[in-house]
């Protein structure tokens, strides 16, 4: 059918006829016109299946922003639980000596490391000179790092470096451009564990904070087991878990 805009303007009842919304008097008058008007017959034939499609429409629901991270985490857990190869190197518990050895080997050829190594050598000499054990003045190597990103449309980013000490795991979190907090709100850092499954995350809190910059937090959670980190906005006095996810990332060894 060739669409005639002028005719459609004169008889816009075709849509109401197909939708079944014409008032009785309009319906009676249009019914009479329809019998002899090929243009309107063609338009009604086009609109009728369109009207019939409307009850089929899927809900207009919008997924929450953090569903993306939940989905990525669910896949990550499945990979861990089912033993398939992963893109990120597997995190395994390693002793301090093994970690130091790996770190040394990995960075040895870097020009920056030449400088760092020279400075380190000076530190060793100085430490020996004053009779202090090296282990007492150097932090453990970074066990895992997280590059935390905002969901689509969100703002902010952060990096987290996790080091293992004898009494727990220290998290050095550096955040910038986080969404502003409302009255009584704070940021909370969470780990999600490998017993998580779709829709049911195994969560352990790693600490709370209130601003951008670097904060240090302590947790008993081993990033070898809790491989997803999330930052949420929480409301003081709200016992429900957990708030809106503003940043999320997966552990890198």
């Amino acid at each position: 059918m060739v669409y005639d805009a002028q005719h459609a303007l004169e008889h816009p009842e075709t849509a109401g006829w197909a939708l079944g919304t014409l008032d009785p008097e309009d319906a009676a008058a249009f019914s009479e016109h329809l019998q002899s008007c090929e243009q309107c017959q063609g338009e009604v034939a086009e609109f009728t299946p369109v009207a019939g499609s409307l009850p089929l429409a899927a809900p207009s629901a919008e997924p929450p922003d953090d569903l993306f991270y939940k989905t990525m985490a669910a896949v990550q857990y499945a990979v861990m639980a089912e033993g398939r190869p992963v893109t990120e190197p597997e995190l395994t518990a390693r002793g301090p000596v093994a970690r130091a050895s790996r770190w040394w080997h990995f960075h040895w050829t870097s020009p920056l490391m030449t400088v760092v190594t020279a400075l380190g050598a000076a530190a060793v000499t100085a430490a020996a000179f004053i009779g202090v054990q090296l282990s007492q003045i150097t932090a453990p190597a970074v066990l895992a790092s997280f590059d935390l990103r905002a969901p689509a449309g969100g703002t902010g980013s952060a990096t987290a470096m996790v080091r293992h000490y004898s009494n727990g795991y220290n998290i050095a979190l550096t955040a910038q451009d986080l969404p502003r907090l409302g009255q009584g709100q704070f940021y909370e850092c969470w780990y999600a564990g490998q017993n998580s499954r779709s829709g049911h995350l195994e969560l352990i809190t790693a600490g709370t904070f209130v601003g951008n910059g670097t904060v240090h937090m302590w947790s008993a959670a081993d990033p070898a087991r809790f491989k997803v980190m999330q930052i949420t906005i929480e409301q003081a006095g709200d016992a429900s878990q957990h708030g809106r996810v503003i940043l999320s990332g997966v552990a890198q060894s």
Partner: protein
Amino acid sequence: MLVPNAADQLAPGELAAEEAEFVAQIAAGDHGAPVEQLYHRYGKRLFRFGVQQLGNEGLAQELVQETFVRLWRGASRFDAGKSSVGTYLYVIARSAAADIRKRPSSRPLMPVEDADIPPIPDTVDQIVNSLAVREALDTLTHEQAEVIRLSQEGLSQSQIAERVGIPLGTVKTRSHHGMRALRTALIERGFHGL
């Protein structure tokens, strides 16, 4: 077949090839960027399908996660010669929805009358059509969408005019323009049955 929103600039053939490549990458062990790409193209549709199938946004979230986990598990079995990635995802989602629905904890606390249950798509074509109608409705102007929505609530045109506070003639022309725009949008989205 639906054209995913995040890749509107690609021709359908290129899109299908790119998505098949994403699945091949997942099968090869990359569960990062390819999963992310497919989520951005299909996550919202799967969520809406989940709400429609399960009647609950929490369960719909679970459905989306489970669908991508099953995609990862079955990626090596995907055959681009037999179906598109979109179809493959909807088949997975339909199966996952059935499994979630069977769980005792997923059942509603109150009995639901049959008359209250909207039509639930069963075949992949029905799922695609259902999502296409929603996305076509999303393209209408607010004014057009309003009269179409009120018509679906059973109001006559004069009742719509009174409800919205506009002349009857305006309701007629908005209905007409809305239905024409809707038809065009449905055709663009590959709706079967026009």
